[in-house]
């Protein structure tokens, strides 16, 4: 693949960045009126987000509903055209790419969806679902069936299953088909949007293991969007925590879990119950108050201040910058 410009950057360890997002904004207008629509407000779903993902790395993106994590994923895939900012993929700015170029790029950037029930066409067989992207991109001509069989085996299904329809599969098997569809065109980068959230615990572990296994085999890079902190800890190398359109903390895995800096990250971690009564008995249960405010009317200053246990006067006025508090460990909080 050719790059129109050579803006490939490297991270602190000298690894090449596959994706680099700079100051990304995605605002949705809220309109009123049936005939003469006028904009009455703006939902700042993603509001000035920057991060990068190195080749072969998994970046976990966590946050609660409405924090903008899915919108961010959609921007990277260019389902949405961002309001402002840049998304450099292999050095090429996706926000400037044409429709035709985007179609080419989607060979390289794929997505795995949350719901294995609604993301597969019930009228297509597993083989057709996996074969469709091959046809669209003109790949594996003349050996489509062979490729489908290959993919089915890769995701832990058997080639004979190609003729079956989605309703004949269980939830976990359907998610394997969804993964197979994403892998069919041999991408290098995959956005996993809550890819294991809808699955039962016993099946979830199978799919997490499969995704990690595929990453090793195929040298994949993941943007792993999820709300489950324990799951993200298992798959991600680095983690970004989002709240109301902003990244509030960004660090390698262990520092995020062992020494979280941002009060929101701390609150999230404290809220997750550990599956062990002995541990839970000894644990202190600090519960933050309130719920995520409406993104239509976000709080002034630090967006987290109304729920923050350590916020003071200054936090209500000043918007904290995401800054590098320790090497590689970024946080957006005035108090750290």
């Amino acid at each position, binding site marked *: 693949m050719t790059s129109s410009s050579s803006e490939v950057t490297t991270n602190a360890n000298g690894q090449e960045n596959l994706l680099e997002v700079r100051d990304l904004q995605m605002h949705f207008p809220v309109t009123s009126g049936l005939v003469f629509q006028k904009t009455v407000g703006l939902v700042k779903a993603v509001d000035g987000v920057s991060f990068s993902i190195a080749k072969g790395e998994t970046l976990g993106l966590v946050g*609660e*509903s409405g924090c903008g994590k899915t919108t961010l994923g959609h921007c990277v895939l260019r389902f949405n055209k961002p309001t402002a900012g840049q998304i450099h993929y292999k050095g090429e700015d996706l926000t400037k790419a044409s429709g035709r170029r985007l179609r080419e790029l989607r060979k390289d950037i794929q997505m795995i969806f949350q719901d294995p029930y609604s993301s597969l066409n019930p009228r297509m067989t597993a083989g057709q679902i996996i074969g469709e992207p091959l046809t669209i991109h003109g790949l594996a001509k003349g050996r489509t069936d062979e490729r489908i069989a290959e993919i089915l085996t890769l995701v*832990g299904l058997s080639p004979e299953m190609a003729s079956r329809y989605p309703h004949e599969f*269980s*939830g*976990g*098997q359907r998610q394997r088909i969804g993964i197979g569809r994403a892998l069919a065109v041999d991408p290098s980068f995959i956005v996993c949007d809550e890819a294991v959230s809808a699955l*039962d*615990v*016993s*099946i*979830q*572990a*199978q799919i*997490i*293991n*499969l995704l*990690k*296994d595929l990453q090793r085999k195929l040298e994949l890079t993941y943007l792993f969007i999820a*709300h489950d*902190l*324990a*799951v993200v*800890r*298992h798959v991600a190398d680095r983690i970004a925590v989002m709240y109301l359109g902003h990244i509030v903390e960004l660090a390698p*895995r262990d520092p995020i*879990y062992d020494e979280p800096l941002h009060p929101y990250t701390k*609150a*999230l*971690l*404290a*809220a*997750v*119950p*550990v*599956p*062990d*009564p*002995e*541990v*839970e008995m000894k644990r202190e*249960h600090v*519960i*933050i*108050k309130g*719920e*995520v405010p409406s993104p239509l009317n976000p709080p002034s200053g630090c967006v987290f201040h109304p729920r923050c246990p350590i916020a003071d006067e200054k936090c209500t006025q000043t918007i904290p910058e995401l800054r590098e508090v320790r090497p590689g460990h970024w946080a957006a909080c005035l108090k750290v």
Partner: protein
Amino acid sequence: MSALLEIQDLQTHFQSDMGTVKAVDGVSYDVEAGETLAVVGESGCGKSVTALSVMRLIPNPPGRIVGGQVLYKGRDLLTLSNDEMRKVRGQEIGMIFQEPMTSLNPVLSIGKQLMEPLTEEMGMTKQQARERAIELLASVEIPDPARRLNQYPHHFSGGMRQRVMIAMALSCDPSVLIADEPTTALDVTVQAQILELMKQLTKQRGVALVIITHNLGVVARYADRVNVMYAGRVVERSSARAVYGDPRHPYTLGLMRSVPRLDHPITEDLEQIDGQPPNLAALGQGCAFQERCRFAIDKCAEERPELIEALPDHYSACFVATELGTTPTNQSQASTS
């Protein structure tokens, strides 16, 4: 100790194109006054259908309670008339559902929905019911309750709606509260708030709480006793400590090991339970878990194990239950199914 609610050999079947689905296939468990009991299991294990059967809310057709008893204070709820059952719902047993948005009527104000059972069932006057409704909203920590009484469900956030549902379920002073996945649709910080609130309110009022969930963390934090369900049956039952600390059913053991934990070091791969949940319309004569079980013996394919007391006050429906305790904790790296 006498049980407040006792489910005995309950069987609820559904008719489908694929045949009879035995969603609940001989479930027995009891709930004691003031305790928190968890019913844990994955989708399709029958945990919700059991609860709906207790409330006699199974849509018929396609569903039907075909056997068993549900004894509440010694009375079999399955033999009550519809009118008698109406009084049990709410006044004796309250229920909270997963989706607070779909359980509230969108075109009626919160106040109206809260006051209806108070005037209809409890015989209060409008004024009394209004005062009680304000009290109830205050008890679930909804700020400015008098004003919010006149608002509609869409004015409330997800967490606030679930608080309203709790207020409603407790409005007629039931002795048992059944909460079916009460926090699954909520964010993790709100989930913690709601669970703490439920635990605290039921403790205060001496209400027995039954939490139905798939979340092993929630069970560990809140439950006194646990029933683990699989394929329409209870496969393990004991105190939460015993079930988590010394699981005696291979399915429970598998669940505990496959869930990623924040307090454990990260292993390269998670231990997984291989295979898929069974088809409930085509269960064989053996143990429903045997195909996925790494401890299965020949007998498991031929005969279905009954729930028996494997250790003192620790029940398991497994032929090898007593041997499981000696299993090394990290014994397998299973392959993908």
